């Protein structure tokens, strides 16, 4: 499956899973879909038949509420049947509302409480350095999430310990639950702040596959400091009526909305 097709399938699975769950976070899942598609389909060394393989690359979805996007990528890569996606958030399911490493094959660390995943990503990258192992660690932060002070503790740590095997995406979709990030808690300019914390910063369009690929290549080749890819994204990307609407942060589509969204994805796919 090429990455473009995988991203389209991921978007359908995200909508389907959240629709069946009747709750969840479609907006921020759709904004980081293309990033996760490139990571899982092209970049990361992973083995779906051996999810805990010691030398695998790791992914930390620090913005854990985008779990449907992560689950969709894992399902399409064969970590578990994609039919499981309709069980999202159900009592009998292995797909928790936020990623749980004890429940779901392929989840490298449990996340959901914002600001915490990125610290664990630092620990994973540090372990590779201490043990002279060559896997890489990828983390995805939300732009609302970086309001958590712990994120900046982690950035300081990553730069101090020269974790060049760590690549951090900021999914900069500009919206959080209460409104635009600019209005709720201004965090601009994110690239300057990351640079000031000692990271190698690359700004891209987070829906441009070649831009994502190019940034990942630069990250891989950058030595002595971690890389931060500030990805400008659209919340709800791919579904016209969800795009740039903060109300779609944590709302499930009703039947008519779901059908309309799926139709749109089919037509544009």
């Amino acid at each position, binding site marked *: 499956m090429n990455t473009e097709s995988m991203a389209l399938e991921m978007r359908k699975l995200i909508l389907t899973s959240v629709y069946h769950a009747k709750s969840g976070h479609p907006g921020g899942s759709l904004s980081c879909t293309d990033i996760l598609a490139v990571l899982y389909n092209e970049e990361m060394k992973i083995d779906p038949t051996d999810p805990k393989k010691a030398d695998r690359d790791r992914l930390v979805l620090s913005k854990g509420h985008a779990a449907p996007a992560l689950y969709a990528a894992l399902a399409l890569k064969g970590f578990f049947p994609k039919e499981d996606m309709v069980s999202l958030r159900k009592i009998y399911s292995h797909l928790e509302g936020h990623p749980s490493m*004890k429940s779901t094959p392929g989840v490298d*660390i449990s996340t959901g409480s914002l600001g*915490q995943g990125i610290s664990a990503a*630092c*620990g994973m990258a*540090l372990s590779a350095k201490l043990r002279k192992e060559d896997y890489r660690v990828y983390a995805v932060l939300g732009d609302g999430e970086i309001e958590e002070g712990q994120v900046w503790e982690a950035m300081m740590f990553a730069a101090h310990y020269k974790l060049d095997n760590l690549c951090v995406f900021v999914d900069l979709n500009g919206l959080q639950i209460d409104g635009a990030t600019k209005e709720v808690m201004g965090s601009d300019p994110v690239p300057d702040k990351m640079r000031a914390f000692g990271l190698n910063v690359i700004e891209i369009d987070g829906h441009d596959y070649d831009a994502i690929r190019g940034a990942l290549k630069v990250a891989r080749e950058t030595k002595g400091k971690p890389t931060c890819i500030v990805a400008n994204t659209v919340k709800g990307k791919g579904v016209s009526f969800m795009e740039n609407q903060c109300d779609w942060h944590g709302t499930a589509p009703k039947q008519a909305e779901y059908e309309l969204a799926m139709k749109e994805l089919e037509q544009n796919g």
Partner: protein
Amino acid sequence: MADLKATRDAYGEGLAELAKEYSNFYVLDADLAKATKTITFKKQYPDRFIDCGIAEGNMIGVAAGLATCGNIVFASSFSMFAAGRAFEQIRNTVAYPHLNVKIVGTHSGLTVGEDGATHQCLEDLGLMRTIPGMIVINPSDATQMKAALRFAVEHDGPVYIRGGRLAVPVVYPEGSITYTAGQSYRIAEGNDVTLMFCGHFHELTAQIREKLAELGISCRVVDMPSVKPVDRKAVEDALTDTGLIVTFEDHNINGGFGSAICEVACEIPCTRQGPSVIRIGVEDSFGKSGTPAELMEKYGFTVDAVCRKILAVKAPEKLNQL
């Protein structure tokens, strides 16, 4: 007289000793290596020590990440900042995925002394024991601290160990005891009352036992470092044999060791009248600056104050003999 040593000193030494046997653990600290005594380990094993700076939340997350990669991790700070500030990181990123992280908080309780209330953690036992899967240990002396560390490194899962700043008597000869989850140590026999403690209460309980013996009341004494899981059998035996338990902790009486004992005690059928547990601890207040001895006195950890509480329940007619 027994040698004096703080459990924090035993922590640093214990880590360095275990490192000879176990090559697979790392030690993290948050700019307090000189105080938590992880510096003893750091000097001998600099490549296995990571200073995380003054950022305890991040330190716990880093510990969790390291643990997912097959490492055992000791994360150290003062109890206030480890169990207190980083509570939610411990809860969500360490304990929820049941990772192999050992959190060691030193400088717990009033015996921190002059630094005062902001640094005297009186809530950590309560916080940590509410977390599913967490083992909570409050060693009473240096030897028991080392035994707890050995348990921690061998146990697969999160552990919280509570240490102290104050030098206290080394009661158990070096290397003479082992520790496993839920273990208690009966150190004196008696029929009328059972004194149960966690942490640095060997001296006080021995003095209380002596005083009450003069009044014809015999005390069993049980050292119970295992705040979670509690040794249920020890509690059952104490109630069956003596009818009254007195708990001691350098912690708020709400939520900590005494509460844990009460939770077990209330499930044990009892036919006798009157209370079955008296909790000695900080009575729902903050600490303050002062020497450890002054603070112990001010907050009611004295032979006289405790004996009065026990006599009021057990033998009110003897109160005037104190």
